[in-house]
């Protein structure tokens, strides 16, 4: 054997190895993605594997029609595998929300990849066969590298690639590897190739495309998500408890938790001023404040406008949420860095469990839980929970509860009011207009009398005496309704809430 013919197999066998690795990875990506997006992992994996192997068979069958310019074809196929395999997962992610026949596009892409991969090995074997190698040797070497590559892929995929890179980036990465194989062969055998210019052009194009995809894969993911929101998504994270999404349109920032709007920076001051300040006008010199929920720090921002406030304890289940609003510059601008104030203590704990074991007393308690749209949240609006609060509230203390919309859900709103009364609180219901929410309600509660003891701060944008007087008036379409008391053993509030919001959604 001369020097050049020994050189062929090493490079080409290395290609076999990479090709096999990439091929199996595409199959795994498709299977994972299909079960991730459509569920039912057993069926999805089974169908994907079957379809993929069958398509490889088609590819192998077609290989007999390739007689000339085998190296050209090999490079061509290699580039196609890289391109299709590389972009498959991002294409699927992006179209998932908008295409009805998602499943068929998925199967189409899988078949295409399978056919190309199926062509690769037979083509390579033909190439090798045309050199001076024994058939036995070729079979033995090619399949050895093929299977070793497969093993490597199947081990690295779950252990390294999925956890470290994620599906989209892994997909691009192996597309790039395929393209590199093509480039390597192209470079080494340039002289033997008929269509080298076209191939060079294609290879560089595919390489750049996939590299860009690799770099910007995070953006692709958020772009895929953006199809469900009107605005541009600037942050998205799944915490152990909820999906946190921030969007921006112009200067308006919105926070969504599990797709429910929590605030819009455009008008959140209305919501938070109304939550915090009326309560404060009825207390003398509140020093110790407890906030339940409200991990965005906006209520704390309002509280820190009072010099008397010495310590704020904030209980929010989700550490990702409070960390985000302590660290993200855009958000700390919104809450004026309130969560980093030395007066603030943040406890990422379950509110009910914390309240049950708490011994300390607070002058003021601000309750800003999500709306009672499930039985877990309904517990936090129960008479039992409010009774626990009485053990946590100083004798002169006050509570305010965000209580959903008295316009959209009047029974729910008045049920919160009644439940607070049922455990011995005097209540003062009021509501304000927050454009992005609608008409929103709160209930003040105390065991004492509502005596105004201090004025609204000067520097507010919305709340003052006149606005508060007005907010205590409930027009005819929101007047008080007869409801039951919300208890752990009836969860009537969740029922009211579901019925009322079902009407308007």
């Amino acid at each position, binding site marked *: 054997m001369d020097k050049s013919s020994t050189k062929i197999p090493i490079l080409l066998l290395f290609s076999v190895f990479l090709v096999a690795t990439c091929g199996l990875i595409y199959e795994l990506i498709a299977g994972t993605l299909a079960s991730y997006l459509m569920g039912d992992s057993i069926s999805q994996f089974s169908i994907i594997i079957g379809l993929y192997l069958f398509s490889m068979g088609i590819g192998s069958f077609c290989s007999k029609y390739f007689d000339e310019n085998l190296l050209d074809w090999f490079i061509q196929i290699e580039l196609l595998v890289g391109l299709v395999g590389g972009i498959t997962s991002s294409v699927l992610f992006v179209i998932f929300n908008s295409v009805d026949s998602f499943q068929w596009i998925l199967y189409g892409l899988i078949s295409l990849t399978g056919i190309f991969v199926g062509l690769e090995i037979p083509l390579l074997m033909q190439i090798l066969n045309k050199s001076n190698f024994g058939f036995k040797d070729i079979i033995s070497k090619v399949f050895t590298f093929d299977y070793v590559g497969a093993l490597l892929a199947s081990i690295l995929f779950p252990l390294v690639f999925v956890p470290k890179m994620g599906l989209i980036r892994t997909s691009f990465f192996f597309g790039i590897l395929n393209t590199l194989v093509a480039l390597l062969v192209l470079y080494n055998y340039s002289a033997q190739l008929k269509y080298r210019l076209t191939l060079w052009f294609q290879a560089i194009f595919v390489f750049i495309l996939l590299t860009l995809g690799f770099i910007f894969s995070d953006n692709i993911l958020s772009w895929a998500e953006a199809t469900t929101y009107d605005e541009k998504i600037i942050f998205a994270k799944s915490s152990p408890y909820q999906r946190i999404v921030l969007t921006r349109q112009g200067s308006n920032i919105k926070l969504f938790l599990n797709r429910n709007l929590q605030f819009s920076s455009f008008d959140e001051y209305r919501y938070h001023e109304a939550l915090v300040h009326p309560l404060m006008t009825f207390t003398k010199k509140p020093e110790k404040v407890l906030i339940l929920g409200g991990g965005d720090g906006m209520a704390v921002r309002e509280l820190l406008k009072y010099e008397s406030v010495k310590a704020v304890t904030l209980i929010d289940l989700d550490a990702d949420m409070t960390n985000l609003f302590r660290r993200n510059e855009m958000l700390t601008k919104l809450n004026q860095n309130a969560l980093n104030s030395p007066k603030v203590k943040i406890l990422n704990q*379950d509110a009910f469990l914390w309240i049950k074991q708490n011994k300390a007393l607070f002058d003021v308690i601000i309750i800003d839980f999500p709306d009672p749209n499930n039985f877990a949240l309904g517990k936090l609006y129960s008479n039992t929970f409010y009774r626990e609060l009485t053990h946590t509230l100083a004798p002169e203390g006050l509570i305010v509860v965000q209580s959903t919309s008295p316009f959209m859900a009047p029974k729910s709103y008045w049920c919160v009011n009644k439940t607070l009364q049922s455990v011995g609180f005097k209540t003062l219901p009021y509501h304000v207009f927050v454009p992005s929410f609608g008409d929103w309600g709160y209930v003040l509660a105390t065991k004492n009398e509502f005596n105004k003891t201090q004025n609204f701060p000067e520097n507010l944008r919305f709340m003052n005496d006149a606005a508060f007087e007005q907010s205590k008036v409930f027009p005819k379409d929101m007047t008080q309704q007869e409801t039951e008391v919300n208890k*752990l053993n009836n969860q009537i509030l969740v029922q009211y809430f579901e019925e009322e919001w079902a009407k308007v959604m």
Partner: protein
Amino acid sequence: MGKSDVSISRKEFLELSGIALLGSTFGLQTLTSCESATVIQGQIVGANHSIGHLLRKAISLPIHQSHQTKILIIGSGISGLTAGYFLQKAGIKDYKTLELESHIGGNSTFGEDEAGRYPWAAHYLPIPSPENKELIDFLSENKIITGFDENDLPIYDEYALCFHPDERLFVKGFWQEGLIPNMDISEEEKKQIGAFLAEMNAFKAAKGNDQKWAFTIPLAYSSSDTSFTDLDKISMKTWMEQNMFTAKPLQWYVNYCLLDDYGTSIAETSAWAGIHYFASRKGKAANAKDDDVLTWSEGNGFLMKLLAKNQLNNIKTQRLAYQIEEKNGKVSVDVYDWKTEKRENYTVEQIIWAVPQMLRPYVMPQQKSDFIKDFSYSPWMVANIQTIPFDTGRGQALSWDNVIYEGNGLGYVLSNHQELAQDQKTWQLTYYKPLTDNNPADERKKAIAKTHEEWKNEVLTDLKKAHPKIEESILKIDIKLWGHAMIRPTICFIHGQARHEAQQSLNNKIHFAHSDLSGVSIFEEAFFHGAEAAKKVISNIYHGGTD
């Protein structure tokens, strides 16, 4: 059957009681299937011993130690613990309680792991009627009743009252609220269900010619008016047919209820017992509906711990009392301590027998016991399934009690239902199934022959009807078999002679206390008989009644 039938040979005793007493006699079958991570883990729970094995050892040993104690309680289920509880309240400290198992509690046994507690059998107590004074007092003393309102109605601890949603039923792909079928049923069926419930309410309000409630708890306070007690002579199924309650969904519902409370089907249960289920509960509360129940993650294990807390030093576990006889005006009890493998003898004045009646002939062979043959018990299988949260299906949200219409078992209880936290990382489902395909003895044999894998598949097959993908979310399934879980209130049992005879104390020295004396295996009845037996003993001790 006569006396000869009862004098079974020792060998038969060993075999019978081996399966008789212990859910855990299935030790030899204990399997741990954790071959690989994809296999659902779990085991058949229980200790590694059988009574037969124990007894063979016991009778070959000399007596190691002799004890004198005034009172001996045999069994630490609810009736035994209640007896001890009332002895303590009367200031009597000189008693011992013997328990065969290595843990106390009987049917109120519970399990516990890093994720929380879960029941192994009884898991709730309906709020009792105000007339059940002793039980109300017990609940008040232990702050389960936190006070009484202006109408003297008890105020219950809100954390113990079952949270909403409490019940749901899976019918044709959808979870409906409540267990009475109401989806997709005809007008006629709806009418029958309404009429049946109205009839049951009439029984609930009915009194006999002796001015006692026709049906009440404790059952002993029910009227002996034959116009009601004659219902014991026919089956619930016959009674329903006679009264035109033939609608399939209604019969399914009634059958479900009876299996749930008694482990007997509608055809086996007497009509008196069947109606008793629907008509005996007359609970009232200031802060709960009449049909609300009290429940805890460990089920009635919570109440059991309260009964036991002041008498733990009196209880000796891992003790088998295998021979009781009167000697010189006292009672001699032979006991085998299977932990230390030593034989003990107790000389006592009074005995409270708080274990099933079926064991009497073997432990007290000289005593008349031909009536015992009428006492039969249903075997049960209970599975505790730990899962990560899963898709709970369409319709009503995941509830405390989740039942599959025409399912193979009785559905599952969400044992962590009373937890308060927003985020629960694991769920504990307790799945119940009385074994009623054949007669109890055959079912017992079949049950112990099955492997963990077979039980697991049986449970999964049933659950998958409602949750096709539940297998992906399961972390482990533990199985417990109860050979003699519940007394069966079959035709003529509750108002028959055997139950009456079994309650009579022997020579005013040996007193009986177990829910099987009521014919109904519920907490209230066990509590009642424990309290009654304690009263007899207290009266004998303080008034020198032991002659």
